Every structure is written in C-alpha cells, then in structure tokens.
C-alpha cells in the first residue's frame, strides 16, 4: 500500500460546538505508515477531536487535511475510502451477522443503489480471516464477546480498504487476552503500511504499539513526540497522578528513567 507522506494533518485546529469550544491550537500530524497514540485524561476532548477529524463535526477554526486535501473538499463516500473509523466495541442493536456488520465497511466502495457483490463478500471473508475471526462470519454480532465484536469492527474498517485508521480506545473493556490480540493486530496493520491514530487509557499499550505519542489535556496537545515522551514525570502531570504511583504501576518506565 502506498501511503502518502502525510496521511492526516490538523493545523491550528479549534474544536467544539457552536457555543462551547472544547479545544484549540491543536496541531497533529500522522505520517504514512506510523502509529500515533493519543493519551490523556477523560474529558480532555478526545471524542470531539475524533469527530472533527472524521468530518462529522466542522472545525471551529483551523484546517484538517486528509491525504493532502482539505476535509471540506471530500465527499462522505470518497473520504470513507481513505479514512476508516473503529468505534469502541458496542453492543449493536439488531441481530446482524458478523459478516453483515463487516460488509457495511464495503458501502463506500459500492454504487449508491447496489447491494454487496460476491467480490465484496470475498474481501470481507479475507478481512475476517486476517483478524482470526473467520469462523464467526455467520454468528450473530450481538451474541459474540466484546473482544470478538471489537475485532469485527476492525475487520469492517479493513474492508473499507482505507489507508488511515482511527481507533477509539480499541482495548477498552476487553479482557487481557483480547487486549493482546488487538495490540498484535495493530502491529500487523502497521507492518502492512496503514497509518493509525488511536486513543488509549493504558499508557503501556501506547508504549507497546506507538511510533509517536501525543498528550491531550483540557483540549490542547500539551506534548507530542517519540515514544520516549512518555516518562513517569509527563504521565504523572498529564493525569494529575502521583509520580511514585505512576512509577509503581509502570515499572518499565521507571527502569528506563
């Protein structure tokens, strides 16, 4: 996959709603084929930032560029072929099969009035197999485990054949084994050349998969840089936690410092 040099770029971005600015002066760059992890406390504006980057919420000021073109120039359908979004694993509403859920990822690649073709099904089967859940294709999405649902949503994003993935806390609410499975898949996707922006509440996951880390607090990127940016000191400050406690919970950081 030929990722462009810069996949996703936000410049001097102000985010929020008409009467309520959530964050401003946000500069963020996602290079082709890299994993950028967003860390920060709850209420820091992560959800609003993602909504803005996905083009669902218009920016209050500043610009977002996807593959070198301003977000406003993209149609929804064209954007979805470049940029895919993986929400947090959700329960779902109607009893679609896993295959049908993943097939929804093909919509942007289909004509307006079309239904999925045999080729779409083949691609979806391959995506499910790639994530190790090929055997779940005929199962009902609402009846599988949270970890399996998260993998199904990642498969749906892969079926979009986009070069950029935005993942919203992909390891939240998963058990340990499934967390490791998802992290392994993120590594594998990066190896295939995808650019990945993900948020996480677990710094050790960022340390495990990220090329770069951005720290988001109170609607501002307080720091961004290589993985080594995450130190006991910066994390303690970011989360308003006691440094000794951070060092105890993340011994690998304390050892490196």
């Amino acid at each position, binding site marked *: 996959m030929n990722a462009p040099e810069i996949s996703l770029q936000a410049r001097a971005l102000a985010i929020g709603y008409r009467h309520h600015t959530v964050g401003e002066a946000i500069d963020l760059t996602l290079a082709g084929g890299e994993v950028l992890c967003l860390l920060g406390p709850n209420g820091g504006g992560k959800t609003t930032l993602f909504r803005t980057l*996905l083009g*669902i919420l218009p920016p209050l000021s500043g610009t977002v560029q996807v593959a070198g073109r301003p977000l406003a120039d993209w149609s*929804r359908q*064209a954007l*979805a072929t470049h940029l895919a979004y993986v929400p947090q694993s959700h*329960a779902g509403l*109607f009893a679609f099969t896993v295959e*049908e859920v993943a097939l929804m990822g093909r919509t942007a690649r289909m004509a307006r009035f079309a*239904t999925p073709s045999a080729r779409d099904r083949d691609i979806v089967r391959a995506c499910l197999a790639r994530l190790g859940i090929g055997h779940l294709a005929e199962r009902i999405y609402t009846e599988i485990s949270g970890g399996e649902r998260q993998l199904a949503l990642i498969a749906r994003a892969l079926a979009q054949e986009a070069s950029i993935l935005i993942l919203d806390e992909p390891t939240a609410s998963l058990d340990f084994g499934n967390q490791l499975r998802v992290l392994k898949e993120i590594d594998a996707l990066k190896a295939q050349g995808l650019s990945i922006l993900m948020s996480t509440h677990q710094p050790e996951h960022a340390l495990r998969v990220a090329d770069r880390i951005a720290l988001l607090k109170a609607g501002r990127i307080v720091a961004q840089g290589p993985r080594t940016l995450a130190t006991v000191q910066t994390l303690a400050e970011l989360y308003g936690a006691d440094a000794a406690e951070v060092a105890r919970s993340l011994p690998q950081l304390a050892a490196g410092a």
Partner: protein
Amino acid sequence: MNFAHQRAIVRLAVLLVPTFAALLAAFAFGPYPLSVPEALAALWAGPSADGDAATVVWELRLPRIAAGFLVGMALAAAGATYQGMFRNPLVSPDILGVSAGAGLGAVLAIYLGLPLVAVQGAAFCGGLLAVGAVYFVAGRVRRHDPVLVLVLTGVAVGTLFSAGISLVKVLADPSMQLPSITFWLLGGLNAIAPSDLALAAPLIAIGLVPMLLLRWRINLLSLSDEEAAALGVNVRYLRLVLIASATLMTAAAVSIAGIVGWIGLVVPHAARLLVGPEFSRLLPAALLLGGGFLVAADTLARSATDIEMPLGILTALVGAPVFLWLLARTGRTG
C-alpha cells in the same frame, strides 16, 4: 456460499404459503360463503361472468382484499423503515405521530365534506406535518438521548393531533358525519371502492421505490450517526428521503383504511425474527407478512360475528400483547 442468505430465501418462500392461504380464505369466507374451488372458479371466469359468486368475488371481495394487502404492506414497510432508521425496535408510524397526523388531516377533510382525493391529500399533509414537527422539535433538543427524545416527541405530537381529532368529532354533525368519522378512525376496509385503490396504490408504490433502491444503505442507519457517516453514508440526506417515503406510504394507507394500528410495529418484528435484520431480506418478508396479516384480520373482522368488527380493534387485540411481550424481551436481553 452464504448460509444466512440462503436460509432467508428459503424462509421467504415458505412465507408465501400462509400468505396465499390468507388470500384464498379471504375470497372464500364472509357473509356469502363460498368454497375455495367456487371462489377460484369465479376468479377464473372473469368479472363479466354471470352469477352471485362472480359479483361477490369480483365486486365486493377483490377490491377489499387488494386494499387490505396494500395497506398491510405499506404499514409494515413503513414500520420496518422507521425502526431501522430511528434505531429503535419499538417505534412505528403510530408512535411517531404519523398516523395521528394523517388521521387529523383526513378527519378534517371528511368534516369539511371534501372528496376522497382531498381526504388523501390532507392525510399525507397531516402525516408529513406530524413527522416534520417531531423531527424539528427533536432536532432542537440536545443533552438527551436523541432516539428517546424522538420517540417522546412523537408521543407528544401524536397526542396533540389526537386532541385535534377529538375536537373535530365534537364539532361534527352527530347523525351524519360522526359515525363515519368514528368508524374510519377505528380502521376498516368495509367502504373500499376500486377508485380508492387507484389513488392509494401509486402513492404506496412511489414510497416503496426508495426503500427498494436504498435497501443496503438503510442497514447503516441502524448504527450511530458517526459510524454511518464514517462508512461513507450521507446520513441526513438518506434519513430525509426515507422519512418522506415511509410517511407517504403511511398516509396513503391511513387515507383509505383509517387508523389501523400495530401492524407497523409488530409485523417488522416478526419479519426480523424470520429472516434477520438485513433490509434487503427484511423488506420482502415484512411486505408479505404485513399484507397477509391484514387480509387475515379483515377476513376475521367481517366473518367472525354477525356485525362487522372494526379492523383496528382486531389488530390491537393481537398487537398490544405482542408489543408488551417484545418490551419484556428486549428489557431482558438489552
């Protein structure tokens, strides 16, 4: 190749059996009973054949059965669309206020002594006004779960339009207009004429076209707006088109059959249990079940007792318990 798909096609084919049985029974039963072979023979002989059987089958029963099937299909398809679109399996044309809006429009037109075309037009305008008001108000209200707001707004708007209907009933001439308004509000097919069909059928067909064309994309509206948008769907545009279609179908149905409740709520559920939620399979199943169910209910309404029962009473007798069962069931699993 695709197990779920094949199974659904088999089940759709099986569904044709009770549907045809309901149609056959509808031709046979009634105040002038015929055997099934007699009814079929009369159908085969054509409308110009002599004899009472031909008259009963062609002039009385056929328009009524066709209207019943059409109304059942329209309400079920509209219900299936509303449920997927508003991400709530408990919404229906009744709950969103569309039926009451269409009802007020039609009752007003009856009160004013307008011809049937105007009754239909007023029903459509009333339905659109109701759903428009619901959509507008729900769009202004933030800080609450949007689907809950939508449903509650629908209930409030529906109540408002029902109050309007009551007002018209008070004002109406008690000997001339009130009985027809009351009977019409309970829902029924006893006054169907072929000209009603000629008016309603094209409107229902027009409403069905976007549902058929967009049958895959409708599925994505059952996701959150963010997800659907990120998958490449223009959510606002798609939802508007489908609201207009479903409302048109509901209004056309209401304008010829009155307010026949519960079909739009219960039939899509039954269809979903049979073939799953994927809309390109759900829609045909809902159409068949809705048409068949309404024809069966109407047959019962006109042949079970000496007096003809209003159709709305029968559908409520079936629909309300099923709704309560669904409520209990979704509460447990969700």
